[in-house]
C-alpha cells in the first residue's frame, strides 16, 4: 500500500512539473515565424543561429513544405485566432490569402535602406495596402561543370546562348561522354513548371498565358522535344540539381540558384554559372520574390512588425544571403567574404537581368489559391508532350481549356510578359 501511495505521488508530481513547464514555455513571448523558405535542415539551422540570433526577442523559426504550411494558415484565419506571428513565403503563397494579412506600409516606410520599388509594388498584391514586405529575391540560372565547357559549340558565347546552341551543346555531350549530360529538375519536388513558364514561353512566344496554344508555342514544344531527346532521363527524379551535378550524373543544368548553391560551394573550381538561353522572342527568365507578412490573427502586431523590420536591415539581409542563398532586396554592399555560391552565381544573375534581350516572365499575380493548379497546367503539358508523347496540338488545346477556366475563375489580369488586359487574362 505504501508503494502504491508513493507511486501515485510521483505521478502527480511529474504531471504538475510537466504542466508548469509547458505553461512556462508558452508565456515566454516567443514569436512564431512560420515559413516555407529555408526549409532544408542546414538553412533552417543557419536562420536560427546566424540570422535570428541578433533579434532582441525570442523567435521560433518553423519552416515546412507548402502544403501543411498553407493548411495551418488557412485554419487559423478561419478560426479567427492563432499562434503564427510572422509569415515568410514566396509571392504566390501570399497571393492566396490577401484578406488575412495586416497592412505593413508603416514598416516599408520606416526602412533605413529602401527596398526595390518593383518588389514593393508586387507586395501590394494589386490592392492599396502593403500585404507583404519583399524579403529576399532569387532567380533561375544555368550551371555547367568545367568538363562540359569543352563541348561548347564553336562561336557560342556562354553568356549569350540561344536554345539552338544549347541543343547542339547537349547533343555533343550526349554523343561524346557516354550518355546525356543535360539535366532539368522535372521531379515531383522540382521546379520544371517555372522553366516552362519563365524560360520557354517568354523566349518563344513573348507571353505566358495569352499565347499558350499559339503556333509559336507548338514550334516551341517541337524544339523542346529535340532538347529532351538529349536530356538525362533521370531528370524526372531530380528535385535539386545540385545533387546530380555533384555526383557527375549531369554536367549541364538549369535550376533555382538556391538549389545549385551546394554544388558551387562544395566544388567552386569545377562549376560555372551563366544566364538562361534566348529564343526567338528574347531571353526568358523568372525572378523570384519571397516576402514577410503578418497575419491578422497575430497576437502582438507591434512585435511582429519589429521582427519584419529587423529582417529588412542590411546586416540581416547579408546574413540571410549567407544562410539561404537568396539575395537582398534592399541596397547593400556585399562584404568580401561571401560563400563561393554567391561569388559564382552573382555575375550570372547580373548578366541575365542586364542582357539586351532580357524578357522576364513574372510570377503570377491575382490567381489566389489557384496558383497551384496554374502551375500544374504547365507541368501537365510538359509531362504529356515530353514524357507521354501525346500530340502537341491536342495537348495544347486541352490544357488551354483548363488554363482558361483557372484564370477566368480567378479573374486575374495579365502580367509580364503578357500585355495588360481588361479583366481576366485571355487565352487566345
Amino acid at each position, binding site marked *: 500500500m505504501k508503494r502504491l501511495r508513493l507511486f501515485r505521488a510521483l505521478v502527480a508530481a511529474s504531471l504538475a512539473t510537466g504542466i508548469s513547464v509547458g505553461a512556462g514555455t508558452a508565456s515566454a513571448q516567443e514569436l512564431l515565424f512560420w515559413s516555407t523558405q529555408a526549409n532544408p535542415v542546414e538553412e533552417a539551422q543557419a536562420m536560427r543561429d546566424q540570422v535570428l540570433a541578433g533579434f532582441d526577442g525570442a523567435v521560433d523559426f518553423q519552416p515546412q*513544405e*507548402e*502544403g*501543411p504550411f*498553407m493548411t495551418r494558415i488557412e485554419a487559423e484565419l478561419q478560426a479567427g485566432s492563432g499562434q503564427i506571428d510572422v509569415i515568410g513565403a514566396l509571392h504566390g503563397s501570399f497571393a*492566396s490569402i490577401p484578406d488575412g494579412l495586416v497592412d505593413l506600409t508603416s514598416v516599408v516606410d520606416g526602412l533605413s535602406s529602401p527596398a526595390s520599388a518593383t518588389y514593393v509594388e508586387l507586395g501590394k498584391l494589386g490592392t492599396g495596402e502593403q500585404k507583404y514586405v519583399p524579403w529576399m529575391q532569387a532567380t533561375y540560372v544555368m550551371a555547367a561543370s568545367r568538363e562540359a565547357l569543352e563541348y561548347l559549340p564553336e562561336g557560342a558565347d556562354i553568356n549569350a546562348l540561344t536554345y539552338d546552341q544549347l541543343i547542339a551543346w547537349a547533343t555533343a555531350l550526349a554523343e561524346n561522354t*557516354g550518355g546525356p549530360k543535360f539535366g532539368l529538375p522535372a*521531379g*515531383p519536388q522540382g521546379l520544371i513548371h517555372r522553366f516552362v513558364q519563365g524560360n520557354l514561353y517568354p523566349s518563344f512566344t513573348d507571353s505566358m498565358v495569352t499565347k499558350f496554344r499559339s503556333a509559336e508555342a507548338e514550334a516551341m514544344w517541337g524544339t523542346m522535344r529535340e532538347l529532351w531527346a538529349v536530356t538525362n*532521363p*533521370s531528370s*524526372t*527524379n531530380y528535385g535539386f540539381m545540385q545533387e546530380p551535378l555533384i*555526383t557527375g*550524373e549531369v554536367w549541364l543544368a538549369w535550376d533555382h540558384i538556391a538549389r545549385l548553391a551546394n554544388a558551387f560551394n562544395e566544388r567552386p573550381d569545377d562549376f560555372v554559372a551563366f544566364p538562361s538561353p534566348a529564343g526567338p522572342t528574347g531571353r526568358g527568365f523568372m525572378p523570384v520574390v519571397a516576402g514577410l507578412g503578418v497575419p491578422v490573427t497575430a497576437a502582438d502586431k507591434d512585435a511582429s512588425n519589429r521582427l519584419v523590420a529587423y529582417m529588412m536591415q542590411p546586416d540581416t539581409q547579408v546574413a540571410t544571403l549567407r544562410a539561404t542563398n537568396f539575395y537582398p532586396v534592399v541596397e547593400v554592399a556585399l562584404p568580401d567574404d561571401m560563400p563561393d555560391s554567391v561569388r559564382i552565381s552573382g555575375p550570372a544573375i547580373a548578366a541575365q537581368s542586364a542582357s539586351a534581350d532580357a524578357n522576364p516572365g513574372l510570377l503570377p499575380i491575382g490567381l489566389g*489559391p*489557384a*496558383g*497551384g*493548379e496554374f*502551375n*500544374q497546367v504547365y507541368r*501537365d503539358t510538359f*509531362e*504529356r508532350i515530353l*514524357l507521354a508523347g501525346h500530340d502537341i496540338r491536342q495537348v495544347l488545346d*486541352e490544357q488551354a481549356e483548363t488554363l482558361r477556366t483557372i484564370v477566368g475563375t480567378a479573374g486575374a489580369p495579365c502580367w509580364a510578359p503578357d500585355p495588360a488586359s481588361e479583366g481576366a487574362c485571355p487565352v487566345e
Partner: protein
Amino acid sequence: MTNPRLLPYLLLLPATLFLAFFFIMPFVQVAWMGLSADGALSLDQFRTMASHWKFQPALVNTLLLALIVVPMQLALALGMASIVTGMGRGREVVLYIWTIPLGISDLAAGIVWLAILDQTGFLNSALYSLGLIPGQVNWLTYQSPWLLFAAVIVAEVWRATAIMLVILVAGMGLIPKEYYEAAEVFGAGAWQRFVKVTLPLLKPSIQTALILRTILAFEVFAVVIALAGTNLPVLMGETYTWQFAMQRRGVAAAYALVILGISIAFTVVFLLALRTREEQRA
C-alpha cells in the same frame, strides 16, 4: 449500483466516442467535401477528377498493382506460415526476422529499395562487379514503366507480406493437430493435407488477411513516391497532389471516396466468397 445490463454499453462508451470524434466526424466532412460544390450537393468534384488525364492511369495502376501483389503475398505468406508452424527450435528467430519489415514505415521501405535500385545503388554495384553490365544502368526512369512497376511490386512484397504472415501464423496455430494426424492415417500426402485440411480451416484467417491487405494495397503511396516519383500515378498520389499542390480539397476528397468505394467493393466480395459456414469452423 449501476444497472448491470447497461454495463457493457458503458464500457464501450469511451471507445465509441473516440471513434465518433476521430473517424466518423472527419469521414462525414470529407464525404461532404467530395459530394458538394459551393455548398450544394453536386458531382462536380467527381467530374473534375475523372476528366483529368491522370485519373485513368492512376486507377488502372492501383488496381493492377493490387491484383498482382496481393495474390503473390498470399501465396508467399501461406508458404512462410507453413514453414514456421512446422518448425521446432528457431521458430521465434525466423518469425522475428520475417516480421522486421512491419516495424518500419512504408516510406523508409521505399527509400531502402531506392538505395538498391538507384543508378548508383547496390544492385548496379553488384551486377557490375559480377561483370553482367558494362556500366551504370538506370532502372527507374519514365522510359521503362514496366520496370518501375516491377520495382514497386518487389518493394511492396518485401514490405507487406509480414502483415498477412502474422495473421496466418495465428490462424494456423488454432488448427488442432488431430486433423493432420487423421489425414496422415488416411494416407494424405503433405500437399493434400495442406489443401484439404489447412486451407479450409484457415478460411477465416485468409479472409481477414485478404481484406486488410487489399484495403492497404489500394492506399499504396509512399513506396511509389520513393521509387517512381510522379512517373507512376496511383490513386493516393493523385489525392495528395490535388490536396497540397493544387489546393482543391473537393477533388482530393472525391479521390478518397473512390478509394473507399473500391475498398468496400472488394471487402464485400471477400466476405461473401470466403464465408465459412458454422459447422465448417474448427
